């Protein structure tokens, strides 16, 4: 996957905006209260099962809670995760799909990371603790956002709007645009 949406674009403003190295992503839709599904996720990802609105890190990657019936897995290998889930759930009613090429991840680093996001999103980032995932919009398009720590934000968007999201973030991060709200 050397052919990324943004060819590893980087913008150095008062916040550092960059396209993250592509990593495997698997979308899993199903009944999240089902014990066999929860077990399949735990075993596949070697992690706990995420609480609502949280993103957690396991040995084999992260697991993000996307909706009451949807998770986003970041395994080491999408193919292995898919076969593991398929193997453990058999013909249970779930959808597991490799969405790696459908999504782009952008990382914001710097003391103003939350501020740059807040310029384009209707979210109170002062009240968003690290490890909580928030699906929202960035300007005109949907995105999922979480903070790894107070100065590092991850943004997942559709690959088709990656350039748009990157440019919005870069514009918000231009030097001279500091507000200092957080």
């Amino acid at each position, binding site marked *: 996957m050397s052919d990324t949406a943004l060819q590893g674009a980087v913008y150095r403003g008062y916040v550092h905006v960059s396209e993250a190295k592509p990593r495997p992503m698997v979308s899993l839709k199903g009944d999240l209260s089902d014990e066999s599904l929860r077990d399949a996720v735990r075993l596949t990802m070697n992690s706990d099962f995420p609480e609502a609105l949280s993103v957690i890190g396991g040995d084999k990657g992260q697991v993000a809670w996307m909706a009451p019936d949807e998770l986003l897995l970041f395994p080491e290998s999408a193919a292995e995760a898919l076969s593991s889930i398929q193997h453990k759930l058999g013909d249970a009613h779930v959808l597991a799909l490799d969405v790696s090429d459908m999504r782009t991840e952008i990382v914001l680093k710097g003391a103003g990371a939350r501020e740059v996001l807040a310029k384009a999103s*209707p979210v109170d980032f002062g009240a968003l603790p690290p490890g909580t995932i928030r699906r929202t919009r960035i300007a005109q398009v949907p995105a999922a956002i979480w903070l790894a720590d107070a100065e590092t934000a991850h943004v997942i968007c559709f690959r088709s709007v990656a350039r748009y999201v990157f440019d919005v973030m870069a514009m918000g991060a231009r030097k001279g645009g500091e507000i200092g709200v957080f």
Partner: protein
Amino acid sequence: MLTLKCPYCGVQADETELSPGGEAHLTRHGPGSDDDAFESYLFMRRNPRGPHFERWRHAMGCGKWFHAARDTATMQVFGTYSAQTTESPQTILDAIRAVNPDFQYGAAE
């Protein structure tokens, strides 16, 4: 700014993250219904000045449809609740009557 709490994922969502779905608790009149009922189902909507029930979708979020009750004049939100119901729960009606003691659902506005 209108913010509604999505009853499915628990996010306090801004209006711009939601898609409006119009009046809630409509009764569908399909094939076999008379013309008046069908026309009413398709086109006729209540437009009250006061408490109102609406459908919204958490479009830029978990994607779920839900119901909301709010006052169209004061913008007070009385609450949000599941889409899997044909009527407003008592807790919502109580919240409305706390402010509007005479409120009757479906009364002429």
